[in-house]
Structure formats: C-alpha cells, structure tokens
C-alpha cells in the first residue's frame, strides 16, 4: 500500500518535471514542440558526457539545462520563426527536428545504450518500506520546480512580459514589449527545462538515441489536459499519473501504458479547455 502511494507520487512528479518544458512553450508561443522527446534525449546524453568526463554527478542537471537553452535559442531562430503563422506545420517541423537530433546523437554516440552516474543511489526507508532514493529526490525537485516556475512567472519582469504576451500579444507589443524576444527566450527556457528533465530521469533509465520519444505523447496530453497552467499541470500529473500507476498495478502494465492517452482524449472531449479553464 505504501509502495503504491509512493509510486503514484513519484510517477506524478516525474511526469510534471518532464512536461513542464513543453507547457511553457505551448503557453507562451502557442506552439507544440514535437522535438520535446529529442530534447529529453539531449539532456540524457549531456548527463552521460558530464559524468563520463569525471565531473560530479550533480553537475549533470545544470549542464543539461545550459545545453538545452543554447539549442533552444538556435532552433527558435532557424526553424520556428518562419512558422509562427502555420502552427500545424510547426508541429511537423519540430518532429523533423527530433529525427535529425536522434540521428546526430547516433552518429556521435552510436546506437547502443549508455549510462550516467546517479547523484544519489540506493534506497531510503520511508513509510516502513525501502524506496528508491532518486525517485524521492524527484518529488522534491518537482515541488521546487513548480515553485520556481510560479515565482518566475508571477514575480519577475520577464514573467510579467511573458504573461502579457500570452494574454494579448498586440497589446503587449503596443506597450513596448519585444514579443519576438520573449518567444525566443521562452523557447530556450522550455528546451532547457526539457534537457534538465532528461538529465533528471537518466538515473532511472538507460540512455539511448530514442529515450525521450515514449515521453513525448504523454507529456503532450498532460499539458493539454492541464489547460496550460502550473497548478493544472500538477493536478493533471497527479490524476493521470495516479491512474496510470493504478491501472498498471491492478490491470496490466500494457494497458497502463495507454491510460494517460485514453483518459486525456476523453477529458478533452468533455472539456476542450482542459482542467484549468471553465
């Protein structure tokens, strides 16, 4: 029972961390980043490079974030800027980008499975069961990430400008806000979050050129169900992640794998705006 509860909480935390970058990009840019899975992969390989070079395993996360930010800035400028008025084509272009990134990684690292050192290993005793320490760390990270993103959006000037662009882009421009720059920085930030998330999940998974792909569709569904808001994403991760754990445990892990997709399709049919909007 305790294990089940911990499974639900840690799985939800993981989903939240992984989907956050996708949500930031969709929220500000109205753009669905199908390269999100590839960005997770880039984060995983960044972690591999950092620990392979002998650096402290905790450095994997900031390193991945920096790589992601730079990658995001370049991608926004080269690929996305011409596609702002063709949102469905932007989905396809980012999907193509994902293929390209996966191939580049294969050129460099080969097809095989790689590993990165974990900052913390072993188990911790909690609620009278021994549980993976790193999964528990992820719960703390998810809470911190939620708080940090809220602070960024609600207590900084960048956050205010970004929210202004989300609500009414033309009005924001008329007040002197460079919405193009806001979008570029946002995409960089979203990519940085995705890569950092990739680094954060590597201790639990093996690293391969397509490691991010299975997460893409679930993150996408969670973000849409969330109604593109931080509390909404937390709720969606908890509800759908919880359902996934329950179905996997009591029904079948295979059916568990489609729980999020099916539930999301149903929820969005009933409430097209997701959980946050009426």
């Amino acid at each position, binding site marked *: 029972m305790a294990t089940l509860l911990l499974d639900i909480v840690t799985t939800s935390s993981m989903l939240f961390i992984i989907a956050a970058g996708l949500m930031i990009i969709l929220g500000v840019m109205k753009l669905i980043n199908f390269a999100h899975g590839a960005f997770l992969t880039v984060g995983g390989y960044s972690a591999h490079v950092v620990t392979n070079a002998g650096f402290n395993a905790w450095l994997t996360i900031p390193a991945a974030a920096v790589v992601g930010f730079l990658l995001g800035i370049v991608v926004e400028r080269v690929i996305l800027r011409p*596609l702002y008025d063709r949102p*469905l084509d932007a989905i*396809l*272009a980012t999907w*193509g980008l994902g*293929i390209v990134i996966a191939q580049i990684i294969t050129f460099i690292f080969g097809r095989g499975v790689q590993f990165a050192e974990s900052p913390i290993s072993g188990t911790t005793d909690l609620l009278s069961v021994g549980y993976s320490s790193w999964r528990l760390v992820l719960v703390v990270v998810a809470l911190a990430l939620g708080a940090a993103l809220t602070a960024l959006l609600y207590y900084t000037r960048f956050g205010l400008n970004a929210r202004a662009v989300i609500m009414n882009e033309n009005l924001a421009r008329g007040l002197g806000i460079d919405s193009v720059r806001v979008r570029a920085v946002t995409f960089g930030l979203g990519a940085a979050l995705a890569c950092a998330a990739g680094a954060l999940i590597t201790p639990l998974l093996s690293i391969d050129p397509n490691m991010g792909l299975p997460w893409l569709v679930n993150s996408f*569904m969670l973000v*849409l169900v969330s109604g593109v808001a931080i509390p909404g994403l937390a709720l969606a991760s908890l509800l759908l992640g919880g359902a996934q754990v329950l179905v996997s445990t009591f029904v079948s892990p295979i059916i568990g*794998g489609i729980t999020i997709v099916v539930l999301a*399709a149903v929820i969005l049919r009933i409430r097209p705006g997701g959980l946050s909007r009426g």
Partner: protein
Amino acid sequence: MVDIASERAGRSLSSYWATAIVAALALAVVVAAPHFLGIYLTNVMIRALFLGVLALTVDLVWGYTGILTFGQSAFYGIGAYACALVFTHWGFGPGWFAAALVIAIVSAALVAWLVGLLSFYHGASPLYSSIMTLALPIVLVQIIFAGGTFTGSSSGLSGFPTYYWSLATWFVIAGALLVVVAAFAWLFVRGDFGRILIAIRENEDRCAYLGIPVSRIKTGLFVVCGAIGAVAGFGYAAFTDVVAPELAGFLLGTESLIWVALGGRATLIGPILGAIGIDVTSSYLSGSLPFLWKFIVGVAFVVVIILLPNGIASLVTGAWRRYKRHGKDGAAAHMHRETVTLVPAKGRGLEENLAADTSPIRIEALTCRYGSLTVLDGIEVEGRRGELLSIVGPNGAGKTTLMRCISNGSERSGGEVTIGGETIGRKSPQKIVALGVGRSFQNTSLFDSLTVGDCLRLARYRIDGARYFERSDKVALPEPALDILKATGLDRQLGLETRYLSHGMKRGLELAMVLATEPRVLLLDEPTAGLTKAERTAIGSVLTRLVEDYGLCVFLIEHDLDFVREISSRIVVLHQGKMLLDGSVEEVVSSDLVKAVYSGQETEAPA
C-alpha cells in the same frame, strides 16, 4: 451556344478517357516492370507500392482536407492484422481470404467512423482531431501487445498460410491496387466533391454557414480512407507473411506524413513518389548508411516544411505554371479554363417566401453570456416578410453576437429563435441554413484557391448536391444571385480564383453565395464595408429588390447611417446588449435617446 455545349461534353468525356489511358499505361508499366527489376528491387518495390496507397489516403485526409492525421498507419495495421489473425487462427482458402478482406475493411471503417464521431464535431479544434489520430495508433499498438499469443504481442505473427505467388504476381497486384486507387482519387479530387474538401481545408466555418455538413463529410472521407488503408495493409501482410505492431504504429503514421510533405501536399502524384522514393532508398541504404539516410530525410523534411510548404513537386509545377503564364497578362494567367454555365434555379426558389404565412423570424428573450459578461440581454424582435431591418448601435453593443446567436444554435445562453415556425434549439449552423437562414460575414473570408464558379457550386451543395467523380457543367442559381453576378461582372470571371478578385467583387460574390442557399432570412454583417459610393448604391438596390420582389426578411448591421436611413423599413437600436428602441426610421432618427447614446453622453440604457 450549341458549339460550346458539344465542346463541353467532349471535354468531360475526355477527362475520363485521359485518366483511363494514363491508368492503362501505368498498368502496362506495372506488368512489364518485374521483368526488368532484380529480385531484391522487386521485393522492395512491392512494399513501397502498398505504402504508396497509404500515402494517397494521407494526402486525401491531410493534403486536401487539412486534417493533420498521425494515425493513418492504424488502418494499415488493422488490415494487416485482419489478414494475419484470420489466416493464423481460423483458416485459409479463397473463402477465408474474402472473409478476412471484408473483416479488414469493415473493422477499419468502423474504427475510422468512431474516431470521426469523436473528433469532427462542430467547433472541435483542428488540434483535437490531431490528438485523436495520435492516440489511435498508440492505443492500437498497446492492444496488440496485450493480445498475448493471439496477436503475437511485440514479435507479431508470421508463417501463417498465404498465397505463395511469384514476386511478379505480387508486384502486379500491388501496382494495380495503387494505380486503381490513384486513378479514382485523381477523378475524385477533380470532381465537384474535391472542391468541397479544399473548401473545408481553407475555411471550415464558412462551409458550415453555407449549409455544408462538414462533420459528416470529414467522417465519411476518414472512413473511406481508413478502408483503403486497410486494404493496402491487408495486401502487404498477405504478401510478406509477417505482421508486427510497427505496422500500426505512430512512427509509420508520422513517416507517411513525411512522404506526403516531401512529395507535395494535395498533388496525389507527389505523395506516391515520396513514399516509393523514400521507402526504396532507405531499403538500399539501411545496410550501408542507415543513420546518414534518416538524417538526410529529417533535414529535407524540415527544410521542405519551412521553405516549400507544397513539397518538392511544387518546384516542378511552379516552373510549369510560369512557363504557361509566359506572355499572358496578370488576370488571364489566373483564369482557369472553366466550362461552367449559370442557369436559373428551378424548384423551391426564393419566390416561395412570398406565399409563406408564418413570420420568417421571431426572437424571444434572447440572452447571451460569456462567463460573467452579459453581451445580449432580453432581445425581442420579430422580423416580418418583406422587411429590411437594420441593427445599429455603438461598438460592443452586441450586433454581431446577435447574428451569431441566430445562425448557430449553441451560441446563446437563453431564449429562443424561431425560423419560419421552427425553433432552432441547439442546432448546428448547417442545419440552421436548412431552415432558411443565410449569413454573410464582416470580413470577406472566401475560399482563396477556388474559382468563382467553384464557390457558387459550393453554395449550392445543400440543394443540388455534388458529383463524386466529375465536374458538373451547370450551376443553377436563383434569379437575384444571377442579377448580382451580372451587375458586378462576376459572370464573366467564373474561372478566376477568388483571391484575385477586387474587394467589391468579393462582397458581390459573398452575397451571391448566400443567396444561392435560398434563404428566407438574410443576415448581413456590414455588407458595404470598404466599398465605394457606387458599389454601396448597387448593393442597396439589390437589397431593396430582395425585400420587395422576393419577400425576404433582411437583418442588416451597418455603420453607415446614411445608407441605413435610405433603405431600412425598421431600425433596432442596441446598446450594451439591450434593445434601446425598435421603430421606424423617423422614430429612431428623431430620438434624443439615440443621439445621446451615439455621442456617448448616456451610460446606462433605461430598462
């Protein structure tokens, strides 16, 4: 006249013959090809030909109709698994073969129908249907995984009995399937119905307000394309004797999008070449340069999406068009050879309005709220036969919202609207068009790449239907619509794409299209915006005729109050969502209250 008619008949016949001849030539190539190709290439080509059929269906759904589908592979998978499951578990032979094919087609059609029902409701965002098509293959693959030994789980099924014909035979089967599907698709997209698909892609909402059942058409197309995809998958499974979950997977679904995008959306031939070219090349390079090839395809895909949205085929067709245009002046270059004639419509017609005795439109206690914001509150208006009713009021008074609440049953929050004795309930726009409501829009949002003739034919779909595989050469229009076309000179521009029309002509065409739906109530939202004085006068006299000679009831939103004064029989003044006044032109013009509202001296409308 006789000459023109005979030439027309000759042309429509020749388009069949041309397609048949090309198809026959293609079939001849298909029959001959295996003798010249090596065994390996033949093998690879058979697979590519089946995938070409899949690419064709993606092109119809996405390229022509604009539904971004990630899940066409699911139908391919359903077909493949129907074949494998029946032959493995139940039996094999001609009877079982036919049964399995029927099962493949029926189950794919059923799944497509269910997905269509869920995703193509009126008001669904295009993103939602994409989500559904994304979910479909993912769910299907998991079901296959969950099927244990029955479906073979992740390793799939193989070694089931099938027809071990020679490679050449299979090549001919696959090739013939592709040629036949392509030939029908070719005729289909060039027929009347194909124009409707393009119109849905360009402006779905506008189609609904012309009475076109968009959701039904999309679902129908999805079902047919799903069934065709299943046949291709079935053929592929019967040929290779192996099925695996990847055949139904999301990756094959996205790959088929890549073929279509690279080859050229909405060209049919582009996607076929894209599928065959990419699939055959990757089979060759998968040994020597597997990653490099995928890398090249990925880069090409991104570049084509950004720089050549119409695919590599557009380089060729673009050059061809420039060549054909050489030496012609601008307008003539955009003229299509249009063989359409306009004829007066028979049947019900607008004149019937004169005989009706119920009032054409009655609005009772209509309210409309968005959250806490009340946009319309307690509107009561009755529109009588042969009446031109102008709705005036400052910006934000709720005029356009009122139009919206009349023409779409799900817009209002309370009250009822009755059209010719029938309440609109929660009806969708296209059903309200059938009740006799025609609505024109504030912005001239026509269908850019369709010709004037196509647009008019589109507007007649509700009444006259559309042919699936050919172009009808006559468009029947009610008398006043013909008058407008003549007055604006549009009747001589039937072959021109609407994006090249002047603003005034677009307004004229818009009005003619709405009249073509034979409404009894006409809702016009600023029909004279951006027009010159002369054009305004022309529109004014058309409206007067519609009201006086055809007994239409016209609701007009108009900012030009001089124009309103000249042509209205009654004026309704809206202010902050409430009705301020409903009276004759003199009453409204002389009202101090109205003056005060317009000059902004009064804030609250008296209750």
